[in-house]
């Protein structure tokens, strides 16, 4: 276990940040925290969560995919993947780190592989930070995620206890990071860390949604599925659940596991270059899955239903029980009309008699 005093943490940031891009949660002028690139003078935020999740670094809001330009008879291709440098993200919470795993399953471990995402994953070092003060909106423990980082999470796990930051490497990348920072880190025993882990676990147990029962959601029978899906609109559960939904897409953008995107091309200027860009898309929008004839999901009810079924039923069916929700609570906090997945879980359980 290595450590550094909390009031000296800036020297660690400077050591790392001067050699490669370092990102950490920073307070912005609206009083909330966002991941920002480290530069001299930037202070680590003490907020529990950033407004957007850490998936932004591997699956960015917009990503330049490729540019083509015609030069005589040749076509010049510009591939921005080679421009991605090694970088470090500090202060990722356990929920966000688990979210990476959900996206990895689809973009890295399936065929064809998403080379842009994989490229960034290979270049990124993730340093997780335990959550000293979980809030009532958190329910990561429902999914077996440990906010006290008793289980290895990310490349390096870190804890803040008694005015000191402690670090433990989990992977080779993590070991390399700690070696690079060796000059400012000291050896330490893990007594304070064990005490912190215990106190965090106790706090989590007291949260209102610490243990929602999702055991049966991962393996619903066809009969239960029919009841939950409510195709003939008998129980009207999805109508009631989505009547206030605006279809704004905020939930998909702040969610650590949402990964849909749209690809668009732009012609750049008179030299006829073409630039292909991908950007986040949201299944809540009315033109998602738009086809020539129409959109098969006509109303917000179908779209909301699809999103929650994907996260709680379809994804675990396809990925051995792994849920596409990590209990970070961002959708609870950001939704303009306060719809959220906890309410939906309870509703699904009641409807499917799970």
């Amino acid at each position: 276990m290595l450590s550094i005093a909390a009031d000296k943490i800036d020297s660690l940031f400077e050591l790392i940040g001067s050699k490669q891009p370092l990102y950490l949660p920073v307070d912005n002028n609206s009083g909330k925290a966002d991941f920002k690139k480290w530069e001299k003078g930037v202070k680590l935020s003490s907020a529990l969560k950033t407004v957007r999740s850490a998936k932004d670094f591997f699956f960015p809001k917009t990503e330049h995919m490729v540019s083509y330009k015609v030069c005589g008879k040749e076509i010049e291709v510009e591939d921005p993947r080679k421009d991605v440098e090694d970088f470090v993200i500090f202060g990722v919470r356990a929920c966000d780190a688990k979210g990476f795993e959900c996206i990895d399953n689809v973009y890295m471990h399936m065929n064809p592989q998403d080379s842009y995402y994989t490229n960034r994953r290979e270049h990124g070092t993730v340093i997780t930070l335990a959550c000293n003060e979980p809030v009532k909106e958190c329910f990561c423990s429902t999914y077996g995620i440990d906010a006290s980082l008793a289980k290895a999470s990310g490349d390096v796990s870190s804890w803040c206890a008694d005015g000191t930051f402690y670090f433990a490497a989990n992977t080779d990348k993590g070991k390399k990071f700690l070696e690079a920072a060796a000059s400012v880190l000291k050896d330490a025993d893990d007594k304070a860390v064990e005490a912190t882990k215990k106190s965090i676990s106790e706090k989590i147990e007291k949260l209102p949604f610490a243990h929602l029962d999702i055991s049966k959601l991962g393996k619903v029978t066809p009969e239960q599925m029919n009841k939950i899906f409510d195709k003939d609109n008998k129980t009207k559960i999805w109508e009631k659940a989505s009547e206030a939904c605006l279809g704004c897409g905020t939930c998909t953008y702040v969610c650590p596991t949402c990964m849909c995107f749209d690809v668009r091309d732009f012609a750049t200027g008179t030299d006829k270059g073409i630039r292909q860009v991908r950007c986040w898309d949201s299944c809540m929008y009315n033109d998602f899955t738009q086809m020539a004839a129409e959109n098969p999901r006509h109303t917000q009810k179908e779209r909301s239903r699809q999103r929650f079924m994907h996260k709680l039923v379809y994804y675990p069916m396809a990925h051995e029980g792994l849920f596409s929700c990590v209990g970070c609570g961002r959708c609870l906090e950001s939704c303009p009309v306060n719809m959220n997945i906890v309410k939906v879980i309870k509703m699904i359980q009641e409807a499917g008699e799970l």
Partner: protein
Amino acid sequence: MQDKLIARAKELLAEGKVQKVVGWKKGLFEDDITPAVFTTAEELDKDFVFNKYCKANLSKYLVKITREIEVAKSTTRMNNTMAKQRDPNAEDKPIPQAVVLVFLKPSDTYSFTQLLKENRITRGDVYAIGVPCQDTLDGGDVCENCKNKKPVSCDELIGIEADIEPVESARMAEVAKLEAMTADERDAFWKNEFSRCLRCNACRDICPACTCEKCVFDNNKLYTSQKVAETNFEESLFHIIRAWHVAGRCTDCGECSRVCPQHIPLYLLNRKFIKDINEIYGEYQAGSDMETKPAMLTFNAEGDPETTIVYDRSHDKEAE
């Protein structure tokens, strides 16, 4: 207060005067409120809530609900006409009347009136009850400087007086502060704020003035589509255009800033338009009555100043 409202709603439902109630539904926590439609007394008893977290402006949901009611009416009328053509002795089916009860805080009543003026809501299908704001203060600057304390266009008032003196408010103070910076400083301020914008469109979706069937931002062929912005320009563009489209119709309800997940101070843009309209074309509060035309839909041939007034009114700091 909550019990009074539930009791009144149940009364009106029982008398058959209203068939639906639009109100606020309890959630998992005290501050977790969702707008919802109630149709029975049991639902009201179980889920209706009214507390200081009921900030949501319910007037926009009436657009969809009253349209459903009107469509049901006109479909029945059409079917009756067709039936008569086939058989002159056919009996007319009764036109389904339905009225929806809605609870409106004073600020919401202005959005309601504005929507009535624009013919988006059918007045006969709505029974509006004005209720007081329960000190919803942590709406930040928007609520603190609320000018709209006097309810308008309500059928009934519970817990609030009809005649309230207009309040002096300092709601333009932050706008004036920005006006006093140089153009470059303002540019830096807004680029900083807009860089966080996700293009989630929550501000547009919740705004009572934004009720276009097909929004200009829903068009993927245009460079203004609803997806995430690729460049600075697109981020700013959305906000300039949206503020422009609601100019003169914005009632300053503050919903746009409340729902923004990135807490961008959108109310500053809308208040800037309101300030300009008030100072150049005369005091105007959108939605305060049914007759006055909004500033953008009218003109004063002799009285309107030339565009050079933008220079005369400028409070810019002198740039070095």
